[in-house]
């Protein structure tokens, strides 16, 4: 196979450099350092809201699916939205709201639809309390680009999926690659300070993120 000789050469150099002439399995790596604290849900919700708000995003708590639907309706009044095919969104009745377009299964069509819409609505697999983050795994029901292309992103996530932080996420998902080609941890709106260190939001990704805990 082309390139095999380059690989062999580099691996041979590495083995010589590290004194492992015959390769073989290494000693055990250091144990992962993951700490999962006990934090009651109410406190997690508070942490999450504070953290996301500090980043100029907004956290909402909906007591029911109906409340969540009403909230989304309010947030998208007068605007057009692209919703992912997440079963959660259908369950909450989001996909039947006026102005919401959904059901895209072709990447090209999806990109074109996103070009003229105002809001992207997705589910989220998890949320992280200490950083105010959303965790989205790409799936047949969840495209990558909806949370990225539109200027406003609304994500709905069941309360029980609100984890304490990164460590808990990687404890539950020791290998995200086993589930998906793309896991993205979204922590607030897109931002840059590349011009004179002045903070500007919505560079390439959304300028506003709404997280609805249901």
């Amino acid at each position, binding site marked *: 196979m082309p390139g095999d000789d*380059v690989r062999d050469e580099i691996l041979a150099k590495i083995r010589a450099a590290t004194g492992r002439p015959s390769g073989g399995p290494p*000693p055990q790596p250091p144990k992962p350092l*993951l700490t999962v604290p006990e934090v009651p849900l109410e406190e997690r919700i508070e942490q999450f809201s504070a953290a996301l708000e500090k980043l100029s995003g907004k956290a909402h708590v909906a007591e029911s699916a109906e409340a969540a639907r009403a909230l989304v309706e309010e947030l998208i009044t007068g605007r057009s939205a692209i919703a992912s095919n997440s079963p959660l969104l259908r369950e909450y009745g989001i996909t039947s709201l006026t102005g919401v377009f959904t059901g895209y299964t072709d990447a090209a069509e*999806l990109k074109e639809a996103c070009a003229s819409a105002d809001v992207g609505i997705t589910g989220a697999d998890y949320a992280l309390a200490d950083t105010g983050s959303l965790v989205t795994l790409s799936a047949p029901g969840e495209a990558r680009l909806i949370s990225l292309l539109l200027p406003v992103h609304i994500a709905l996530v069941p309360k029980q999926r609100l984890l304490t932080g990164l460590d808990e996420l990687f404890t539950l*998902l020791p290998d995200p690659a086993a589930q998906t080609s793309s896991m993205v941890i979204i*922590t607030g709106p897109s931002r840059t300070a590349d011009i*004179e260190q002045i903070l500007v939001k919505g560079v390439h*990704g959304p300028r506003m993120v709404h997280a609805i805990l249901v």
Partner: protein
Amino acid sequence: MKPIPVESIQKTLSNDPLGEAIYASTGRLMAKRAAAIPDHLREDFEQWREQANRIKRHTLENLDYYLELLEERLRARGGRLVYARDEAEVARFITRLAKEKGVRLVVKSKSMTTEEIHLNEWLEKEGIETVETDLGEYIIQLAGERPSHIVAPALHKTRYEIADLFREKLAVEREEEPERQTLIARRVLREKFLSAGLGVTGANFVVAESGAIVVIENEGNARLCSSAPPVHIAVAGIEKLVPRAQDVAVFLKLLGRSATGQPLTVYTSFLSGPRRDGEIDGPQEFYLVLLDGGRTKILGEPSRRESLYCIRCGACLNHCPVYRKIGGHNYPWVYSGPIGAIITPQFHGMEKDWWLPFASSLCGACGEVCPVKIDIPRLLLELRVEAVREKIRSGEARLEHLAFRLWAWVMTHPRAYEAAGLFNLVLRDDETGWKGQVPGPFRTGPLKEWLRFRNLPAPPAKKFRDLWAARQQREALKE
């Protein structure tokens, strides 16, 4: 061996607004980092550093194993691993693939490794348009300049310069507000993302067991580069590997805080291979190109190996009092600051870059903040020894070597040391006060350099041991 680039350094130091910008920006980044490590996190942070250091050490000591594991896992996910010995091989692979697929436009997100290899130049030679999509990188690409900082490439540019630049290169109306300038860039680049045939990114970490890469960013351009075009190529140095997905957590906690004071950057993408069956979007093909480019050489020196632990956070740059004065452009390579000072001569040899390890007052701030605990101060000292050996070998350190040999002789012969009052003869004036003047013939070499910015102390009429002897006599008389 090349001389120190004094003129270039002087130019930066005498350019007030630029100097101000560098010093102020790095100061802000220092403050942000400090704020992200409050007292109650101090102990945890130290543990994370220890763990990160341990993981890097283990991974590099067994790099061949993890590379083979990576290849196996990546292939299982539908991706392909490509090895490259040097910059030419990376560039050739990417260019060849782009041509094969009829790619006319490539969108790129920030990657130190692709800068290391001047990828854009290679692609443009083949008539393939390459667009940097990180806002700061986009700006300096338009301006035809080099980035001045690992994390903040356009640190040195003002909004007025950017206004002029956009008007000239993008044929838009002149706009001085950063927010509106950003929207202009967003509009222009969005079109590129959606029409490009290839997206090229770097990778902050490469996860062996998962066959995955981790890409972190704040803008969203790396996500677009890796998700919009049909083909995604990620480029990274072979040293970027970590064993498991679970190891990524500790690095993420260190990297954002160390770089910009963020517990997490806005987007953290964990990507393994092209889109899976049933997934709606994402690339259809994924390639990971791993570059040696001299890393195996450093790997082979156990006392130097930790130079490869670097996770490119930029903290050492921000805290370095020398970098804060001279900025990134005075370093000869894409890697600047303390980390640049230690890896540049290791990659390129001492001939041109021998002076880099000396461009430091050895204050130690870099080692103190390095999230993976690279002992940069120790490496600076060791590289100085190597540079001196080179200079002696090439006959360029005759005077200096003689001076130190003389010094060592005096310092090991106490009576000669006591007699060394020559200094006094030269500068003797009175016992108090500091001298601004040195007699003409002696105003040379180190003395001349000192006197350019400071006065010299006048040596005292009596040295310590004479005063001590007198003091002891007085004590004896009292008793």
